[in-house]
């Protein structure tokens, strides 16, 4: 399978150097070949990479070994062909960031925000980008924080919020609203700003809409209000110390991030976790997926005015904290995984606790659904609203439930299975039109599927250790640390220096509650990542938000925002 992926891409790109890095085919190209290569990868039916998952860059300034290239920067495009499960990374050296590269915005819409982020964080320009400006940092920021010569503690004050006036006018012009219409008294356009601190935004997002009556003519969004420097902070920490940071990405399903993160490190290390740890991760992943969807559905119900449903759903999540805090010691920020396994095993009697929570959740879901499933008001309010066609969803890099609601049956658990997901019996629900209703109902159905996976896993979970017995990876048992010098030295080295990873660059992804959560690492061989980039599913969903809401009513935009489940921590990192 892997060989064929490599052969396929190599056949399509005869001149380029291709190799494998984990699941991905890596193509190295020269800057002038980039545009051609990307076009080829997208349009050649053999490659058919319909999705641009992520764009990021690497600054090799401080790389301790001879860096893999002469130029200081490298830009990496990560593409996916979802039908055939092909993952392709295109790496391009950039000698002069002010010249940069050609933009990929003409090929995929997701390139727009992806390239803006690279520009913001690394200062690499993309020629031909329609709107290249900062996205995560504020407009008064100077310099580019992810460059290695930017000190992590150089803080810059922002005194004023960006007006976004230029952007909204440009968007209006794009939609064919000219100045004459703007000035005409009968078609006077009203500008409405929502957020970043507004109850409807569920966090810190800013939505600026140009309204004709209640209809949205044009919309631009600003994010970055919760940018917390995850990636720069991670470069200073050992691999295991990053686990608590991942909790705070999507804080509604912290454990999913923990698992996705350690899985990415383990796959590069080549560590095979124990059978029991694998089952634990499946159980906990699915449980957190349910919890995440519960919060999303509950918040959505509040926004359409169904407060009762909120209590049915949210109270179950609140109850589940009993199980979680008993297991992990914390309610929200679990930090439960370690490279090579888990922090600890389940406690005695976990099965019955978990089962009673599952029953309660099922009851909550069915109570909530009873109120809405055949409710005319609910249907009128959500069906045919804020439609996202499949082609556009792919082009904007949607993944997870939002993509499946548009009818694309792509789910990493099915299409690139890990942790033995192929052995579980479950289906991937898909929507038919990609409207708000579909996005909601896909989530409801996914909860049922996840609960069924959990029950299957509980039945088959084997006994055994939860950490691999590899002294390079896992901490030794406490008795060894206290009673033997080898154990002590081993413990000391792992804690202070971290788990050492072989030098290289890799990408690994996981089906998180919101979609494909990817981690892109560069290792210099030490116990800390040289670079760590998160591919957050929310970021690209939000990048397509204007596409969904333009032409709809302002009240529809509100419910659309809650049904796509934007989580600030993951969006802005």
């Amino acid at each position, binding site marked *: 399978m892997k060989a064929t992926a490599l052969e396929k891409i190599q056949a399509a790109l005869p001149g380029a150097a291709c190799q494998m890095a984990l699941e991905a085919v890596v193509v190295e190209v020269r800057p002038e070949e980039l545009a051609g290569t990307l076009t080829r990868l997208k349009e050649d039916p053999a490659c058919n990479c319909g999705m641009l998952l992520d764009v990021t860059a690497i600054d090799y300034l401080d790389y301790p070994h001879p860096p893999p290239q002469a130029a200081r920067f490298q830009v990496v495009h990560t593409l996916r062909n979802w039908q055939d499960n092909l993952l392709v990374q295109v790496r391009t050296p950039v000698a002069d960031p002010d010249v940069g590269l050609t933009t990929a915005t003409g090929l995929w819409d997701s390139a727009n925000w992806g390239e803006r982020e690279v520009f913001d964080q690394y200062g690499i320009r993309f020629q031909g980008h329609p709107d290249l400006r900062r996205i995560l*940092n504020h407009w008064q920021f100077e310099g580019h924080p992810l460059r290695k010569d930017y000190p992590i503690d150089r803080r810059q004050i*922002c005194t*004023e*919020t960006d007006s976004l006036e230029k952007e909204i006018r440009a968007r209006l012009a794009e939609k064919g609203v000219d100045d004459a219409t703007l000035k005409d008294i009968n078609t006077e356009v009203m500008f409405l700003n929502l957020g970043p*601190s507004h109850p409807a935004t569920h966090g810190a997002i800013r939505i600026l809409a140009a309204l004709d009556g209640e209809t949205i003519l044009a919309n631009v969004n600003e994010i970055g*209000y*919760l940018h917390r420097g995850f990636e720069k*902070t991670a470069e200073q920490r050992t691999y295991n110390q990053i686990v608590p940071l991942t909790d*705070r990405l999507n804080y509604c399903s912290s454990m999913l991030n923990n698992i996705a993160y350690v899985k990415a490190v383990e796959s590069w290390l080549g560590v095979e976790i124990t059978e029991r740890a694998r089952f634990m991760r499946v159980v906990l992943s699915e449980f957190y997926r349910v919890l995440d969807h519960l919060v999303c559905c509950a918040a959505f119900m509040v926004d359409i005015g169904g407060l009762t449903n909120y*209590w049915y759903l949210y109270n179950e999540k609140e109850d589940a904290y009993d199980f979680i805090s008993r297991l992990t010691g914390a309610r929200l920020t679990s930090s439960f995984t370690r490279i090579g396994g888990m922090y600890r095993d389940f406690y005695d009697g976990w099965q019955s606790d978990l089962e009673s929570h599952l029953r309660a959740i099922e009851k909550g879901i069915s109570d909530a659904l009873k109120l809405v499933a055949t409710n005319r008001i609910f249907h009128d309010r959500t069906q045919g609203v804020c439609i996202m066609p499949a082609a556009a969803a792919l082009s904007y890099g949607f993944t997870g439930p939002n993509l499946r609601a548009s009818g694309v049956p792509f789910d990493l658990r099915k299409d690139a299975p890990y942790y033995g997901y192929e052995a579980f019996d479950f289906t991937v629900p898909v929507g038919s039109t990609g409207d708000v209703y579909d996005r909601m109902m896909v989530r409801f159905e996914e909860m049922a599927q996840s609960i069924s996976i959990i029950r299957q896993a509980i039945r088959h979970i084997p006994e055994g250790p939860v950490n691999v017995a590899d002294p390079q990876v896992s901490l030794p048992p406490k008795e060894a640390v206290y009673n033997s010098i080898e154990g002590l030295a081993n413990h000391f080295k792992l804690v202070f220096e971290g788990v050492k990873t072989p030098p290289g660059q890799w990408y690994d992804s996981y089906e998180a509650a919101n979609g494909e959560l990817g981690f892109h690492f560069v290792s210099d061989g030490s116990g800390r990542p040289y670079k760590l980039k998160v591919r957050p599913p929310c970021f690209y969903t939000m990048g397509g938000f204007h596409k969904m809401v333009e032409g709809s009513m302002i009240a529809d935009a509100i419910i659309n925002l809650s049904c796509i489940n934007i989580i600030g921590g993951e969006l802005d990192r």
Partner: protein
Amino acid sequence: MALGLEATLGDTVITTKLDAIINWGRQYSLWPYVFGTACCAIEFMSAAASQHDVSRFGAEVVRFSPRQADLMLVCGTISYKQAPILKRIYEQIAYPKWVVAMGACASSGGIYDNYCTVQGIDTIIPVDIYISGCPPRPEAILDALIKIQEQIKGESVLQERHKEYRGILD
């Protein structure tokens, strides 16, 4: 801050009696404005939900307009990009007002000691109570509420709190 009549009365027995009545009223009808940005806001949701029930302390009327609130709860990380908004909203709340910094991030920047995170919201606006934890448990929020109530008990309409305060954005 003096409301009106008592300003001319000065520090007399009438004022102190008035203080007692006004403070009693303020103590048990705090209307929170939740400035929720991150993970801590999820724990506030739990504090407001049935199990912990913040209404037992008279603070369940969560307002979404700063004009109608008097207790600002800052739940979550504040970045420099967010800071001017935090300040603006604080200024929009009418006097008297109190501020709670919930969680490590709001109190000190928390685990984010880096280029984009404000190292404690008390560099932007004056803070009355800090809650430790990452995130704090809902009980800790209730505890902070009780502390604010106790603080209010000792206040006087004649004193203006935080008059001298100057933040980095002032």
